[in-house]
């Protein structure tokens, strides 16, 4: 970009006492976001109460600076005239590694931007103030492995080496036939899955599917989506925090937390939520991805 972004006459933030720590950190080149000390979730934009659990115990922490591009736009006709000299420029929705999404200015990289690109915090002076902008991570997978001097353990893996922060989701609706299929496989004929009257009088208040049906969506996620074909579970640590009934929509999610460079092994965060967004299963897993393609 030919123009100096810092000379733009763009509108600045409308800072309040509550939001000041965010902007003070930004001025120092940091991205500070709130974390809830009760529910553990990260919060953006700043609020006096946690929007997830309404706790007031919110603490400021510096974000890792890593993120993933959820969407972007090249703006040709800005909404504010102060931006016109910079047009076309890029804005994007950045899903921070901590969870929340922030809208930010994106610095152009050497390749065209794509949804899903991994991004890094790139503090940039715009309109007379330093803003927490982002830039694409430029290293390709191969370069990353070579620069560390170790052999790439992900050679031959169908979908390649996953990136930390990458995630995938799948949604399906549970059916009575799921329960019957699971019984065929395992012999589990627990009355909670078949005796409606009894199940409705139980703590669950409804017929529920076997836990294996709930967690099964995660098998599909790792094997089909992320890390993809060839993936098997090495270790899982799951809590089943809410039962899933019959004919309920469930959404499974996996997110990559740690990737071994030398072997096709990664640690993932896993969850399954119901149609109301309530957590049904939560935990972590370690997975191994068999290289199915010859190198």
């Amino acid at each position: 970009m030919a123009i100096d972004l810092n000379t733009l006459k763009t509108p600045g933030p409308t800072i309040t006492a509550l939001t000041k720590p965010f902007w003070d950190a930004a001025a120092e080149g940091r991205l500070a976001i709130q974390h809830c000390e009760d529910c553990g979730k990260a919060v953006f934009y700043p609020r006096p109460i946690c929007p997830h659990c309404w706790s007031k115990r919110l603490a400021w922490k510096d974000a890792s600076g890593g993120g993933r591009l959820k969407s972007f736009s090249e703006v040709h006709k800005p909404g504010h005239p102060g931006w016109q000299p910079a047009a076309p420029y890029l804005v994007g929705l950045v899903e921070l590694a901590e969870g929340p999404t922030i809208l930010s200015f994106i610095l152009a990289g050497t390749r065209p931007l794509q949804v899903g690109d991994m991004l890094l915090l790139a503090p940039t002076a715009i309109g007379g103030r330093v803003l927490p902008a982002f830039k694409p991570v430029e290293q390709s997978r191969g370069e990353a492995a070579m620069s560390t001097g170790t052999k790439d353990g992900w050679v031959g893996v169908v979908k390649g080496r996953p990136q930390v922060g990458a995630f995938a989701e799948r949604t399906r609706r549970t059916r009575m036939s799921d329960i019957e299929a699971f019984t065929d496989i395992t012999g589990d004929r627990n009355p909670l899955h078949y005796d409606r009257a009894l199940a409705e009088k139980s703590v669950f208040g409804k017929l529920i599917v076997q836990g294996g049906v709930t967690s099964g969506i995660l098998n599909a996620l790792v094997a089909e989506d992320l890390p993809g074909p060839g993936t098997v579970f090495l270790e899982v640590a799951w809590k089943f925090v809410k039962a899933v009934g019959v004919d309920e929509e469930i959404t499974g999610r996996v997110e990559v937390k740690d990737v071994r460079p030398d072997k096709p092994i990664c640690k993932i965060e896993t969850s399954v939520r119901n149609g109301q967004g309530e957590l049904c299963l939560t935990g972590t897993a370690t997975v191994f991805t068999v290289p199915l393609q010859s190198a």
Partner: protein
Amino acid sequence: MSGSKGAIVGIGELKPQRLTSGVTTLEMIAEVSRLAVLDAGLEPAAIDGLLVGPQVGETPQHVPATIAEYLGLAPTMANVVDLGGASGAGMVWRAAAAIEAGMCEAVLCVLANNREETAPRSPNRNPIREFDVPFGASGANISYALLMQAHMAQYGSTARDFAIIAAAARANAQLNPDAIFFGKPADVEAVLASPMIASPLHLLEIVMPVAGGEAVVVTSAERARSLRKPSVHLLGAGEKVTHRAVSQAPSLTSGPLKSAMARAFAQSGTQAGAMDLLSLYDCYTIMVAATIEDAGLCAPGGFGAWLNDHDLSHKGDKPLNTHGGQLGFGQPDLAGGMTHVVEAVRQLRGEAGERQIDKAGLALVTGNGATMSEATALVLGAA
């Protein structure tokens, strides 16, 4: 009619204009209210309920009282509905609910706006102003561009798929002499050749802001029987509000209309495929695409193929926005959402003239506010 929650018995609409000069919003509200009450065949004194929008230019507070006084009404129920483009549809079920609650008998729902050459910018002070604007994202265009880009990335939908929606709206507007783009058709190629505003959004995929006004009168199903025009019944409604800033959206490709429409279908015992008219809120092409998918007319990501399989004109198998939609008619600010209600009433009464659809029994009306944030859905039925 069994299952009726109330009836729309009067409609009013002002022809949209690019600019007004020296006309106040209050004056326009009075004009369009008169049209709706005359159409209903009611005396003004019969109006005892009033629902208005929040943006009455010259009046920031006490909006219902200001409008009631101006119109000479003394309503026993008065309120502001502030759901952006969903306000019009949101008024209809609130009117029916207020009548059902015994608060009033005939409710005027009205939205209008003037449009002067130099409109003052409102001094916003909210999270969008603080956390989006400084990064270069002001206004709805960029927010909807982000939704559109996400849809393309997730499902592989193409610029052409979206352009079909804008071209179909322009085509339908050629049968509506009041539409701002009457006499100005634009085909898919023209949409794709129009300037890029915020990628991947082209100029002709964005509504044209205009001045205008829309009003409807709602009363009970029983009272409707004694009035002169065929009544149009509210059979089901749904609403959901999920966020304001696009960064806070729970999904970029599916919106709160999904749950609002599901409730409206459940209340009315209908489903999307049974609708004779789709009167879908269309501020941008992506909004129609997401609504077609959220309604269950096709699978997520499948709107492009669905559009290719159907004829969206008044003679087609899936008439969509026969008045031209806001993309063809123009967007008179919040009243833009009400155009979808007014057109559905015209069609269900059989009063749509040259663009009348053959079988007009059921209509789906949607409203949408902010960035796929505020959603209202109505299922309307002919008498």
